[in-house]
């Protein structure tokens, strides 16, 4: 459905060049929920703009719905739904007016495609007369999604839809995306939150304009292939220092209320002994996507 081959893009910045995308390639299959996971500045938005025909890549070929993003941009613009990272609806129009407007410019009506958006729109309906600028963050995202969906697109591009949205709304949002996928819509979504990777069918981890790894969340976790320990002590700072200086430790980094530790050889007892901290609490844990990301990044 989406095919990206060797795409590169640089921006001029002062006299120098900043490489936003560096030889990126991946495929998204029809009906897949594909996640681009990476921190701010990884190049996610540039990639979205190239795929939605808003930017031209310096190198490489990309197709969406079998149409070339450069030559057949008009076809793509009719067939995709795009939700930019920044809230981009008309703040001085009401919920209803925004939705109607976006339906009409795609030559359709809200009534015609009501089924498509019904599930999300019922939550917005009580506020349909309210100006979009006066909605809460979660509501704004839902309205933006409705507007991107109202013309029954084949492919949906969602650029960081959950950034700046509260935890409850984020979970709701992902549930909605699951249902869209069930309707056969291909979804490409980007997010800086590693834990959201698990909700995608497949993900690509992006950093500094490069893809570090692609696969299903399970494949990525299996590929991690190292034992990982969670450590805790009264003084977390002192513990981290001690871990980093220890010769047995390959990598140590803060992770929630623990520090995650990867050893060079599986000699946990030696480590505990050499640290000599009476209040040390350490146990084996299972890696998650963030561990994969950190380990990929350090190589």
């Amino acid at each position: 459905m989406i095919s990206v081959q060797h795409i590169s893009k640089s921006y001029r910045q002062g006299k120098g060049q900043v490489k936003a995308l560096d030889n990126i390639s991946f495929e998204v299959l029809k009906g897949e929920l594909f996640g681009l996971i990476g921190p701010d500045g990884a190049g996610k938005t540039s990639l979205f703009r190239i795929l939605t025909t808003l930017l031209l890549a310096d190198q490489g070929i990309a197709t969406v719905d079998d149409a070339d993003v450069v030559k057949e941009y008009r076809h793509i613009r009719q067939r995709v739904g795009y939700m930019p990272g920044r809230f981009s609806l008309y703040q001085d129009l009401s919920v209803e007016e925004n939705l109607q407007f976006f339906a009409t410019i795609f030559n359709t009506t809200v009534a015609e495609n009501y089924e498509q958006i019904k599930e999300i729109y019922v939550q917005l309906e009580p506020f349909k007369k309210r100006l979009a600028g006066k909605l809460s963050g979660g509501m704004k995202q839902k309205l933006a999604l409705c507007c991107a969906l109202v013309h029954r697109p084949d492919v949906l591009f969602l650029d960081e839809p959950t950034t700046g949205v509260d935890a409850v709304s984020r979970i709701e949002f992902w549930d909605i995306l699951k249902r869209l996928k069930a309707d056969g819509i291909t979804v490409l979504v980007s997010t800086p939150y590693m834990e959201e990777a698990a909700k995608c069918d497949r993900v690509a981890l992006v950093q500094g304009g490069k893809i570090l790894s692609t696969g299903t969340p399970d494949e990525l976790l299996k590929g991690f292939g190292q034992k990982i320990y969670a450590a805790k002590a009264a003084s977390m700072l002192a513990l981290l220092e001690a871990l980093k200086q220890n010769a047995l430790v390959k990598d140590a980094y803060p992770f929630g209320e623990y520090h995650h530790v990867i050893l060079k050889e599986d000699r946990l007892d030696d480590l505990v002994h050499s640290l000599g901290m009476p209040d040390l609490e350490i146990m084996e844990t299972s890696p998650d996507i963030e561990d994969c990301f950190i380990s990929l990044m350090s190589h």
Partner: protein
Amino acid sequence: MRPIIAFIKKEFHHLLRDRQTLLILLGMPIVQIIIFGFALTNEVKNSRIAVMDLSKDVYSRSLLDQVEASRYFDIEREVNSYSELESAFRKGKIRMALVIPVNFEKDLEHQHRAAIQVIADASDPNVASTLTNYASAIVRDFQSGITDNKILPLTIQTELRMMYNPQLKGAYNFVPGVMAMVLMLVCTLMTAITVVREKERGTMEILLVSPMRPYTIMLAKAIPSLVLSIVNVASILLLSVFVLDVPVNGSLPLLLMESVLFTLTCLAFGLLISASTDSQQTAMFISLTGMFLPTLMLSGFMFPIENMPFPLQMVSNIVPAKWYYQVVKNVMIKGVGLEEVWKETLILGGMMVLLMALAIKKFKIRLA
């Protein structure tokens, strides 16, 4: 067709919901007409003057009576010495002074010639020369009054007739000027800003990723400005006819048609600006320097083009407002028809087509 209509409707929503801006856009012509009509006038009326009558005879009295009676002058004070005169000028209390020397009547009666002195404050040269002209005219009038029954050896009488504007009202000049200025400001600025605002707020991104074509977006953006401009033309014309007593002597439909043509030219310029900039501030700055200042300076409304150095005269030719200003003056004040203004109309039309084509060509189908 439906997408265009929906888009135009959306534009009107933006316009009508931004009450402050709407008030400025609709109120601006009214305020400008009032300011130009009642405050910023260069007509000379009731100027304060001083007189120094050293003669105090019948002739000098009656001359001063005539001066006093004219609507141009108010005798602020009578003085008896040059030093008093000087200090009145210095304090800015008077703009002109009349000095009638001793033996005014005697000189006239016996030597058939007498002199009076007119002293004007020439720190504003235009006002000074207007005032002295009026004063000389009154003196000439007075002279012909007293020589009525005497035969002078040789006289040539100049008979003046002020065509199209017999009362020499400034309004005949500034109404067309204000029309040009307001239309330009509303159309260029408003159009440029509404397009750039979509870029700034990110909505342009979504509009581009839709089946909408660039020219559709431009058309939809232009129509509300066009409607607003027509409302503004109507309010200016109503004010000028009913408040300032400046009639529309020519054909009203022709005047409106020309206004629409000028509006479209300004719209095209606004669209061109919006296609080349990404922020509202830049758009505003370019509209003001690129359109407002030339309109003010080079349209012939504030400063006569004939008096400008040759290069500036050439530059004034590319200012659309210059041609529109001439058309409005000719149609509205002189009452001429299209046969007299076809050349200006053609030039405006050409500018419109050129600017529109450039704007459509420059409109980006992508973000960068």
